[in-house]
């Protein structure tokens, strides 16, 4: 009974933590790529 609750607590908080971590790392990667793409396409000459 209590084991189940402790396990649920662990995985619940792990899920919250991982999803926060997901948005954080994803956002950092995305913003960097976004800036990168804008820079490289901004520096080529196009007709």
């Amino acid at each position, binding site marked *: 009974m209590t*084991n189940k609750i402790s*396990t649920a607590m662990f995985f619940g*908080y792990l899920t919250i933590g991982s999803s926060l971590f997901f948005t954080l*790392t994803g956002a950092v990667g995305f913003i960097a790529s976004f800036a990168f793409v804008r820079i490289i396409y901004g520096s080529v000459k196009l007709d």
Partner: protein
Amino acid sequence: MGFEAEPFSVKHTYEKPYSSSKPVLETCNPGRMKYVTYDDPPQEVRAGEEIIFTYDVLFTPSDIKWASRWDTYLLMTDTQIHWFSIVNSMMIVLFLSGMVGLIMLRTLRRDITKYNSLETPEEQAEEAGWKLVHGDVFRPPTNAGVLCVLVGTGAQVGCMFTITLIFALAGFLSPANRGGLMTASVILYVAMGFVNGYVSGRLYKQVKGMDWRWNTLCAAFAFPSVIFVVFAALNTMIWGQRSSGAVPFGTFFLLIFLWFGVSAPLVFLGSYLGTKAPVSEDPVRTNKIPRQVPKQVWYMANFWQIAVGGVLPFGAIFIELFFILTSLWLHQFYYIFGCLGIVFTILCITCAEISVMLTYFQLVAEDHRWWWRSFFTSGSSALYLFAYGCHYFSTKLEVRPFPLTTHRLCDCPYSYQKGRLTSDCLRNTRYERLTLSAFTIR
């Protein structure tokens, strides 16, 4: 903070008759400014002798700051492993920076010079590489709104974490007061709703989203409600167990108030300002019809790129992760915020570099669907984090029935911790239930 105990042997004399509730001693009496010294006659040990025990407490001011009063007790015993962790992360970041530097400085410069020197249309028709997809890279992706919300939330979490770290490093948040750290994080998370609104609103305008009201609502409520549902479910469960570990009703409503009353308005405000701010034009015009993506080699498929992308950011943090998990679940103190700061910085650099690098390879392969992939490339490290958590759970944590846990928890090396933990244990016993402190190190 510290104390010295100094034993004295003193033959005490007192005003007769002896009153056990209010004895008046002649040899030790603060009212008469009489303190015990080495000059007092020592106590002889003889049969039938009367012995009176007394103590004096002398407070001396120290030049240790209040915030760092625990430092003596918190001195690291395993400095080496933290250094190893930092060196490990440094290696990863150096390796990646080398790769990215190579791409940026050599390949990219060569590409740009080559592209810009091509004059005739025939020459341009023959060109290959990332320039070919210029008409497609800025086409907004499918579900652009969801991406905006996720990026906004990520920015919010990042700002919250950075500021909390700065506060902790400056000594405002003592590690001895774990609740303080938690409270500060929650308050900062709520305050950073502004950043969330601003970033997601701005990005939404950049991808030419039409329905910015809906986007703002999602930014304010979508992600927090996921967290809240999990949190509320867990809390209800431990309420059912009448455990003291449950968040009380008052705090629960305070959290709801902070969410709807403070965080949401801040998101709206940020979103309003972000949408009002002018966005820069895309450097390249987007074609009407999407270019067909050529058949990709197997390792350029979404699955492999994303799976590989997460490894390095995770590799940069996983040693530190062990300490964080241990501090959260085994009631150890986490106080090496300097280390955490370095590792966090390295994590951000690694995420940015791996994502930029893989996006570059993707564009070179003439695949222009980089929006979501660049997010998932570094975001997939969260999957590794989850998997590591599961591994940690199965190998390092052992759920034991309560009495054993009491014994182990009270077996702590620090006396002040002992006091705190014992009272925790007592409280638990009173509820006759196990709270989440029921883990021991195997």
